[in-house]
């Protein structure tokens, strides 16, 4: 990848973000109801709501508020929550951390489970044991994450009392408690992810097993597993990378339900609360961050492709 292509990709990233910011702003402002009504609740008079709206600056035209918001974001100022009166960045940052741990660890665990499971299911696909491995992945795939979460809580938190049922402890306070509080939610998320990944791993390896070069490798004395590891892993990695990139994006937002089940203070539950309260500045900030994360993940996946797949790299450099 040349400097020029990286530059072009970065420019594309900025334009995408700008377009996304406009769409986010318009969509959130199109929601019926507003924060002034939520603050004043079922005892408010219409005049009072109007007065609060003015005090919060919600009566100004959309264009003015959009420009104000975007120029603020460019300077790193995401605005101030209308409910808590605190700046958005300081409220999102700790949430982002929780979400990243949750999603990151779940993804790592999912990969650790799916690679051996998928490989086994592929290599032994004509045996009963391989069929069982496939079936396990299929069952895991059909379990909703929240349902897995509820059962994990019932078994490990309520009945056995081995692990906490929810909440989050920062690792600064206690590393052990931090890990304990993440075990169940990470497992619940990873079960489904591992099943999805295992199916991709399986089909990618089956493809590899049918390749001519693989047969050649076997014929010169490599074992199936040896040939797979030495020569097949890159081929598998490419298709796996695509899926992981896509899944990471959905996982960031999809973790919202798991966050509810385990009362985890992640981005998703903060987003849900802010939408319910019509705290639009917070909603916009979180959604923009998620869009940014998805774009960056795609960008990073593209870059990694170049390293994993030499064919792509050659097209880039030979021009």
């Amino acid at each position: 990848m040349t400097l020029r292509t990286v530059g072009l990709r970065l420019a594309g990233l900025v334009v995408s973000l700008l377009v996304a910011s406009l769409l986010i702003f318009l969509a959130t402002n199109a929601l019926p109801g507003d924060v002034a009504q939520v603050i004043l609740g079922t005892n408010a008079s219409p005049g009072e709501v109007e007065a609060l709206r003015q005090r919060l600056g919600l009566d100004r035209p959309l264009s003015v508020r959009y420009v104000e918001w975007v120029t603020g974001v460019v300077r790193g100022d995401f605005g101030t929550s209308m409910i808590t009166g605190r700046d958005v960045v300081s409220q999102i940052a700790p949430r982002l951390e929780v979400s990243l741990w949750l999603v990151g660890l779940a993804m790592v665990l999912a990969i650790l489970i799916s690679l051996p499971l998928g490989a086994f299911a592929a290599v032994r696909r004509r045996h009963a044991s391989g069929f069982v491995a496939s079936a396990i992945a299929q069952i895991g795939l059909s379990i909703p994450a929240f349902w897995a979460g509820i059962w994990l809580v019932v078994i490990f938190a309520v009945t056995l009392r081995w692990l906490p049922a929810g909440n989050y402890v920062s690792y600064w306070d206690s590393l052990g408690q931090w890990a304990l509080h993440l075990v169940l939610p990470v497992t619940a998320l990873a079960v489904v992810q591992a099943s999805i990944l295992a199916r991709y791993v399986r089909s990618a390896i089956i493809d590899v097993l049918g390749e001519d070069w693989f047969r050649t490798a076997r014929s010169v004395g490599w074992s199936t597993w040896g040939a797979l590891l030495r020569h097949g892993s890159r081929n598998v990695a490419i298709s796996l990378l695509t899926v992981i990139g896509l899944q990471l994006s959905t996982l960031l937002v999809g973790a919202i339900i798991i966050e509810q089940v385990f009362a985890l203070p992640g981005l998703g539950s903060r987003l849900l609360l802010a939408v319910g309260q019509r705290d639009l500045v917070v909603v916009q900030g979180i959604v923009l961050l998620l869009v940014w994360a998805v774009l960056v993940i795609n960008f990073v996946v593209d870059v990694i492709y170049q390293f994993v797949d030499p064919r792509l790299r050659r097209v880039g450099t030979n021009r």
Partner: protein
Amino acid sequence: MLSTMGEFRPMEARRPRRLVAAWLCLMAAGAVALTACTRPEAPSQGEPVILNIGATGEPVGLDPSTVNGAGTPFVLLYNVYETLVRIDGEGAIRPLLARDYSVSDDNKVYTFNLDGLAKFASNTPVDAEAVVTSFDRILKGDGITDQVTSKMAPVDSVKALDSDTVEVTLKQPSNQWLFDMAGPAGIIYDPAGLDTLDTKPAGSGPFAFAEWETGQFVKLVRNDHYWGTGTRVDEVFFRYYADPNAMNTAMLSGQLDIISNLTVPQALDQFGDPDKYTVIEGTTDGEVVLGFNHDNPQLADLKVRQAINYGIDRQALVDSVWGGKGMLIGSMVAPTDPWFEDLSKTYTFDQEKARALLKEAGFESGLTLRLRVPTLPYAPPAARFIAAQLKEIGVTVQVEELEFARWLSEVYTAGDYDMTIVAHVEPRDIGNFANPDYYWHYDNPAFADLIKKADEGSAQEQVTLMKEAAKMLADDAAADWLFLLPNLVITTKEVSGLEQNATSLSFDLTSVATNR
């Protein structure tokens, strides 16, 4: 760096097995590390006493005078903030910051004698000046909600007679005023903290505000300068759960000491073990109202409203929707109010009568009404139940569920609805029916007149007139009072000192204790 297909170098056969072994080690190490952590920590001597309280309605702000909603006073009233008088567990007015008070013969001048011992958390005394400053701030009304200013509206002047005596003169007598002074409108704020009330509540209660982590918890700590009998609890966390089931499992797994209000009464059985849990069952001020939009000409007809009241089997509704735990009330009065009368038999379930009334009103061929409800725990299930029952008397009910913010905008503010369901949790909020601008648009001058006379009359007159007013509302079928939300508090066996009834907006922790 290109991988060349040419160099085939057979790998030793052991290599993959080594990899498998490494992978197994990694997983095993993780498991071991976790089991090592799972040893339960025994609370040692000298550790702070912490109470974790599960709750569902998070505050929308920290200053009870600038935000509405029940979440704020739930945490702060009586715990962090105190008032001159308070509401006790039976619903009666008792002295709090005022040692005692007297009322002039014309019921217009109140003299409060402060307890000289009272101090704010900042260690400054709660003196007459603080009371005057707090009340004047509300009277000035700058940025204060109408909800709060309207409660202070009867006041003509507030003055400090000496450092411990305050005299409040009303424009006209008002019984409701003194009652309201026991709520958010009557809070005595620390004058030194007035500028930062929205981020740092400053009061004189047994606890001081420490931290609000949005979407997670509000933390209170013991106020070491508290003037009364201090609490032994060092820290209190109100932890907020968007999913009530997550709150219940947190309690079951030992992470919570108290569930402040069970919003899934069907789950009560989970806490049935008396060796582990105490279940507190009482009443609240929360009337679940099936409200009618009186601007709708069909609902302006008394016969239609009565038909709907006859057409709903409220006991069956409570059984199906709220685990049978709600009390039937029949009007807008909570059982802890002195003028409570059981009016739940005004319209007992009678489908024949309902059909006949609809026929008289000219709706023999039926009518269609939109029931637009917020997605709060009780509303959608109740709405579906009502739709099914009213169908049997020939009323087609179109149920629509709206997220609360949208409900506030379209139903509450814009009045775009025929019927709706919401719980009104303010104490003594029957006066809302006297306001034709309120979202029900109920306009009954005779009722409004009764409320006004009751407010200005003697204590005895107030009771008589309020009974009359409540009965008038019920007879006029101004709404359908489905049931009263129960107060369902779950605590671990170790916790004591909570009130049985929720008579104010406060979750009162003044006397809470734990012998853990």
